[in-house]
Every structure is written in structure tokens, then in C-alpha cells.
């Protein structure tokens, strides 16, 4: 988000220098009320199960968020509304988007903040005669208007981050679809010449004199490389096939076993399963797509471990969370670079030497088709943790 956006909104709501100045003047008098505003804000969240649900890090995360909110309140009254201010505010907005906080809670939260600041001003006026004298006459109205206007601007910035996220997602979906079409075209067109190469190799083998070791070695290599081309083409075609969702009762444990069967683990990589013993036997999901997601997440974890020294571990987990199936994949790799996190699930985004950067984009497509979401965060093994949620998997 650019500074232009702030300028435009400020102009629209009539926020001028005098408003900025008075907010900065009010700040010392309103600061004592910040803790109270933060507490009321989070009391409202605690009272709403849906809002609370996005704080997956539990109370520790909420404590962190409280101190961030207090810092944010300082920013609201800083009096400096420049490019740096927009950058910081947009970052907070993007955090809301990332943790999937519904926009109605942002609106509700801003309403509480606005009310809290007005109450804080009333309390300060009653408490500080000097302030009351300073704000006598029309200046009090200006102060109250400044609070309203800055809250409107804050809200506009937050809503803009949601709009930008929506636009980025739409772009990603279109990009994936275009890539899918291209992959499909290339994949299909390559299958025919590849078929000829395979049949010709087959015939060549039949006619070659036996016992020539070099000939055998080279034809074997040709065969292996052709098989590799075939498997690359199959992955391209998998991308091209945006299958509609077909939910059916799926036995999750055997499906995980099957998905792991064909994976080749590099030497030294230990893969273990942590499947909740209480996990109900059947989940209503799309079996093929869930298997694909597991294979992609594990492959991604394997790639993350390539450059890792020491213990190289991957843990795949499955648990029930409300009516959702939760699939987790943890690795002990280097984790996800902060600046890459926002692009992690975008098609063609990769930090790796190998691969196209489509695996995680496909994972997101699979989860979102199920109405769920996928997140990446620092995990318990020191690397990344991916969490894919499939809501409705255990709906009665």
C-alpha cells in the first residue's frame, strides 16, 4: 500500500494538519487509558468464539497481540502520518488477513477503539483542568472530530489490505489456471512423441545383440530418462486438471500410508506420523485431492531439509478440530524466510533450485476448494509447520 492511499483517504475524510497536531497534543492525556482500551478490546474477542478461533496460538498469542495493540494505539495518536505510518499500518492489516480475522471483527474492534478514545478524552478532561481549559470552546469539537477521522483512516487502511489480498488471490487463481492450461497443452503434446520414443526403444532392445554391456547400459539409461519425462508430464497434467471436489467418506490413516508409500526419502530423513488416536475413522473429503496435498506438503518438507545439517525430521499429523480435519506437516529445516512468507502459496514462488513452485499453490487450491485454509508458521521441530484445515470433514 502506498502513501498516496493515505493522502487520498485523508483528503476524503477531511483530515488536516490541525487534526494531526491536536491528536499529538492529546496523546499524553489519553495514554493512561490505553491499557483499559486493550482489555476491553480483548474481552470482546474472548466473548466471541469465532473471533477467538483465529488466535490459534492460544493465550500466549493473545498476550503478544495485546502489547501490539497498545503499540498501535500509540501510533494512532502519534501526530505523524507519513509513508512509514502507512507501511506499519498496512503490515498490521496484512496480519489480520493472514490469520483470517473476519472483517466484521475489524469493524467491531475499531468501534471499540473509537469509543475508548472518546471515553479516555472525557476522563482526561474531568481529571486535568489544564486540558479542559486548553480544549475550551470549539477546540474540543476539533479534538473529537480528529479522533473520529483518524479512526476512519485506520479503518480504511485495514479494509484496503483485505481488498489488496482479495485482488492478489484472484490474480493467483487466474495465474494458476493459465499455468494449468499451458501445462496441460505441453503435457499432452509431449505424450505423443514420448510414446514413439518408448515404443522405438522397446523395438530397438529386441533387435540389439545381447551381451554388449555398453549397449545395455545406454538403453537402460534411455528407458529411465523416458520414464522420468513421463512422470514430469504426469505432474504437469495434474496441475492442469482442476478437478471438481468429490467428497466421500475417506479413511484418513490408510490414505496417509498410501500417500507416503511412493515417496522416496533421502538418506538420513526420518518421517514419522502423529495421528490423533481419537481421530474418527472416516472424514468427508476428496480422497484424491487430500492425497495430493499430503504428497505435496511432504515433498516440500523434504526439499526444505536438503540443506539442513543435523537431525532431519518430518512429522505428519492428523487430528480433529471441531468438525474439521486438521493435517499438519512439520519439518526440522531452515524455516520460512519472513520476506517470503507472503508469497509462499503463490504459483511459481520458490526459493529452491529444483521444481516450479507449484506444489504449495496446488495445496492452497485443494484446501480452499474444501472451504478451508492453509497456513505456514514456525514449527516445533525448528523448521516450518504447515497446517491444512478441512472444515465439514466431520459434519454430521
Amino acid at each position, binding site marked *: 500500500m502506498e502513501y498516496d492511499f493515505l493522502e487520498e483517504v485523508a483528503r476524503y475524510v477531511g483530515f488536516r494538519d490541525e487534526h494531526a497536531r491536536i491528536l499529538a497534543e492529546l496523546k499524553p492525556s489519553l495514554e493512561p487509558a490505553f491499557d483499559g482500551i486493550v482489555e476491553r478490546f480483548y474481552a470482546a474477542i474472548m466473548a466471541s468464539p469465532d473471533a477467538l478461533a483465529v488466535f490459534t496460538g492460544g493465550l500466549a498469542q493473545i498476550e503478544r497481540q495485546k502489547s501490539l495493540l497498545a503499540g498501535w494505539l500509540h501510533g494512532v495518536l502519534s501526530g505523524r502520518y507519513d509513508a512509514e505510518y502507512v507501511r506499519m499500518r498496512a503490515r498490521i492489516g496484512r496480519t489480520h488477513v493472514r490469520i483470517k480475522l473476519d472483517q466484521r471483527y475489524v469493524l467491531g474492534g475499531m468501534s471499540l477503539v473509537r469509543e475508548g478514545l472518546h471515553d479516555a478524552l472525557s476522563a482526561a478532561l474531568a481529571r486535568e483542568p489544564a486540558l479542559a481549559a486548553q480544549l475550551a470552546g470549539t477546540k474540543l469539537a476539533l479534538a473529537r472530530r480528529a479522533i473520529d477521522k483518524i479512526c476512519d483512516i485506520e479503518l480504511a487502511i485495514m479494509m484496503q489490505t483485505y481488498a489488496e489480498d482479495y485482488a492478489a488471490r484472484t490474480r493467483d487463481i487466474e495465474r494458476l489456471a493459465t499455468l494449468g492450461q499451458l501445462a*496441460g497443452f505441453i503435457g*499432452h*503434446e509431449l*505424450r*505423443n512423441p*514420448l*510414446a*514413439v*520414443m*518408448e*515404443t*522405438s526403444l*522397446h*523395438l530397438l532392445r*529386441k533387435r540389439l545383440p545381447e551381451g554388449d554391456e555398453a549397449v545395455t547400459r545406454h538403453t537402460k539409461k534411455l528407458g529411465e530418462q*523416458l520414464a522420468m519425462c*513421463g512422470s514430469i508430464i504426469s505432474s504437469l*497434467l495434474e496441475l*492442469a*486438471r482442476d478437478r471438481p471436489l468429490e467428497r466421500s467418506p475417506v479413511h484418513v490413516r490408510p490414505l496417509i500410508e498410501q500417500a507416503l508409500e511412493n515417496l522416496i526419502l533421502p538418506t538420513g530423513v526420518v518421517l514419522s506420523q502423529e495421528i490423533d488416536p481419537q481421530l474418527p475413522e472416516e472424514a468427508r473429503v476428496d480422497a484424491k485431492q487430500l492425497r495430493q496435498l499430503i504428497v505435496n506438503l511432504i515433498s516440500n518438507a523434504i526439499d526444505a531439509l536438503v540443506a539442513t545439517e543435523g537431525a532431519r525430521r518430518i512429522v505428519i499429523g492428523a487430528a480433529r478440530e471441531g468438525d474439521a480435519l486438521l493435517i499438519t506437516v512439520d519439518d526440522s529445516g531452515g524455516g520460512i524466510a519472513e520476506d517470503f512468507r507472503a508469497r509462499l502459496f503463490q504459483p511459481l514462488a520458490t526459493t529452491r533450485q529444483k521444481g516450479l513452485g507449484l506444489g504449495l499453490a496446488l495445496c492452497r487450491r485443494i484446501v480452499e476448494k474444501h472451504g478451508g485454509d492453509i497456513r505456514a508458521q514456525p514449527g516445533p521441530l525448528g523448521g516450518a509447520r504447515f497446517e491444512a484445515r478441512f472444515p465439514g470433514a466431520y459434519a454430521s
Partner: protein
Amino acid sequence: MTTPDSPPRALVVDDNRPLAEDLAEILALAGYDVRVFDDPREALARAGDLEFDFALLDVRMPHMDGVALHAELCKGHPRARFILMTAYSEDDRIAEALAAGVRHVLNKPVPLDELLRTMEALRCELRS
């Protein structure tokens, strides 16, 4: 019709001429008497004079696809067994073909062991 003494007869139709020829050669090496066409219209025009036990047809071909060709060919050869080959994801068309009696569908590149195994199994079926 095939007797235990005569070689089984196969028809290969694929507009990809090099592939059609290779497949014909592979089947000939496996003991089949093979006729090969790279134009489905020609295969259909000649079908009346031809006897065959198996037909290996490509799905996507110009002028007439393998599914339509199967529908025409099986009218005059009700006992013949049909196998389709495809390089494309044409799930709906494939489902139609299977419903119309096609016995097996192979993805390209054609897995040759699977092809020969399938033909052998169908051959046993014809004998019984």
C-alpha cells in the same frame, strides 16, 4: 474368427504414423497379424473387408475420433475387443467409450507390458 492355429488379428489406428507403425511391429513380434492405418476414415472404409479380433485405437484423431470409430467398427465386428489409447485427459469421452463396450483405455506413452498383458487376457477370453 481366430482358431487356435491362426494368429490373432489386430487393427491399429493412430494418426501418429510412427507410433502406429511401432505398435504394429511390437504386436507382430508378439505373434499378432496386424493391419495399421493412420487415418480413421480409411480404417472404416476398409473395415468391411477386414477380419480382426482386436482393435487398438487412438482417441484424438482428425476427422473422426477413436470413440466414434469404435462405435462404427463394432457394428460389423461384434466379437472384436477394443482398446483405446489417449494422450489427453478426456474423461467424459472415455466414460462414453467404456459405456459403449471399449474394454480397456491406456494413457500415452503406452505402457507396453500392460498393453501386451491386456491383449493376452482378451485373447484368452475370445478363445473360451
